[in-house]
């Protein structure tokens, strides 16, 4: 039998039962579709998350008060925790690999200019924040490098705050009132967009010392460290830990490196990937069982045909090949439909959520199709073996 004829014969057997074959292939299509969609989105999602987290620059380490991992509750609740101070940040800056530090205090307050008032997020930061977080100043300049305890009352506005308070009028040099104190607008920021739901443009930046006074705090909420690109974040984190333990007497703080953060997110993504993969796997299994069922029925229905083929000189293993081929064709059709489904789905996804880049790699597509073929082969084995084992005389008598 010529390969082309073999293919034509199996294809004809499949297409002769159009509806039945279509329904059977659907099972495989859903499985393959899920797998393809998942891998397409999975890669896009990874890129998306990575981009979100590196938009503030790489080589960042953050230090927070309290050891979350030992108590399971925020350190702020435990009285013997020594708070992080501006002094801590200043000492940490002496570590050679650390380029810059940002002492962060954050809170909500009303900001007022002229007749307009808006509640917004207030960040108390150092002059270094724009550098460390890669913020671009649109007009004016960022906060000056004043001594922390004697910082002047300057404010830098996020683009949305500037627009809401000043509209098209000049903001630079204007006076605004934050929590009852007057600040002079020194600069405005470029639009930065959102990060995981936080609107970074709806924020203002004032010196750390001013923010501490404003929110009535005597400690920092976080210290951000920028270390040199060449140094490993783990060794830098070790050094930070040593310095702080020496100052505090115990490890009453948490150090998070950016790598750790990405690792955690990677873990979440992996779990997600696994879950969708499991769904895809289950539907592939169900699809495989569907093919098994339909092929068993086909062998029963076509027992007479099998007898005829044997009478015409077709050998057992050729009968086996014919029915295996049919199962594979069924699965391959389902697989192709699944590819279409997956690629179309991820295209739709990227259309609806432009920030989420969906990308189907051809190697994954080929692997998915191969997977479908393997499922077809496995599902076809039992019925095909039964067909091959039929005695020609018995088979011919069946009709």
């Amino acid at each position, binding site marked *: 039998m010529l390969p082309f004829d073999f293919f034509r*014969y199996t294809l004809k057997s499949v297409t002769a039962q159009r509806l039945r074959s279509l329904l059977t292939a659907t099972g495989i299509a859903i499985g393959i579709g899920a797998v393809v969609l998942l891998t397409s989105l999975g890669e896009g999602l990874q890129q998306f998350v990575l981009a979100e987290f590196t938009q503030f620059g790489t080589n960042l380490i953050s230090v927070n008060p309290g050891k979350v991992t030992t108590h399971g509750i925020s350190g702020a609740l435990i009285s013997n925790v020594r708070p992080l101070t501006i002094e801590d940040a200043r000492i940490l800056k002496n570590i050679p690999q650390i380029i810059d530090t940002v002492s962060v205090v954050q809170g909500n307050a009303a900001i007022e200019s002229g007749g307009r008032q808006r509640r917004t997020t207030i960040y108390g930061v150092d002059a270094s924040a724009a550098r460390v977080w890669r913020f671009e100043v649109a007009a004016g300049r960022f906060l000056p490098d004043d001594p922390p305890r004697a910082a002047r009352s300057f404010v830098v506005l996020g683009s949305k705050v500037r627009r809401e308070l000043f509209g098209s009028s000049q903001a630079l040099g204007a006076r605004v009132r934050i929590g009852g104190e007057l600040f002079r607008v020194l600069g405005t920021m470029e639009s930065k967009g959102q990060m995981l739901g936080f609107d970074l443009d709806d924020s203002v930046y004032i010196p750390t010392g001013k923010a501490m006074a404003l929110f009535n705090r005597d400690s920092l909420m976080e210290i951000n460290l920028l270390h040199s690109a060449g140094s490993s974040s783990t060794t830098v984190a070790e050094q930070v830990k040593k310095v702080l333990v020496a100052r505090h007497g115990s490890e009453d703080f948490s150090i998070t490196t950016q790598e750790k953060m990405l690792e955690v997110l990677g873990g979440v993504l992996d779990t997600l990937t696994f879950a969708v993969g499991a769904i895809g796997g289950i539907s592939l299994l169900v699809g495989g069982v569907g093919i098994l069922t339909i092929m068993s029925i086909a062998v029963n229905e076509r027992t007479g045909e099998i007898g*005829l*083929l044997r*009478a*015409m*000189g077709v*050998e057992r293993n050729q009968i086996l090949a014919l029915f295996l081929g049919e199962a594979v064709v069924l699965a391959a059709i389902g697989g192709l439909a699944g590819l279409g489904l997956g690629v179309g789905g991820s295209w739709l996804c990227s259309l609806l959520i432009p920030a989420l880049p969906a990308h189907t790699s051809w190697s994954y597509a080929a692997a998915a199709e191969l997977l479908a073929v393997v499922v077809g082969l496995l599902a076809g084995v039992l019925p095909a073996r039964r067909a091959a084992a039929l005695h020609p*005389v018995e088979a011919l008598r069946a*009709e």
Partner: protein
Amino acid sequence: MIQLRHIERVFMVGEEEVHALRDVSITAEAGEYIAIMGPSGSGKSSLLNILGLLDRPDSGAYELDGTLVSNLDEKQQAAIRMHKIGFVFQFFHLVPRLSAFDNVALPLVLSGVKPDERQTRVSTALAAFGLGNRARHRPDQLSGGQRQRVAIARATIMQPSVILADEPTGNLDRSSGIEVAEILEELNHQGMTLIMVTHDPDMGKRSRRQILMVDGRVEGGKGEDRSP
């Protein structure tokens, strides 16, 4: 030329042994026209299955065109079936999803004949059997007589030396049956050995020789007319 020597075939039906064929010895010259007759259960079909290499005898020897085919392995027997034996069945055994053309072409397809050669051979055969305008029809669009003609065209497309027909007219009305018998006899005239199982006495009378099977044994002798 067909030679069966001392063929025995025993089936187990439940606990019981059933002797389908007992010491059957038959010689058929090339080009003969033989009707195998007898009551149902007499072993006609078992004999035809042995002749068609669809079943193996428990003992005895079968020689076809000088080859001892009863000793061949399955692969070799399949090749003999493909090239030397054409089967015609009572219920036609056409593949329902294939057109008349594709049904006739099936043996050529299975033996790997190239499409353009198939095209000419099948067209010629269909025309010869009066089916030239039925090539694209599926079996369910054909009458019983037409179906059996398609089946005969398929059985003979490989130019076999033997045609084995199992009640070829059993499922046809009288006139279609005669038509089919005439076609088979024409092929016999062209030199193919025709062996037909039938229990229709009129069909049996048409043959040049009848073999009467009773209880697994051959009752009739060579050339004797045993029809009632």
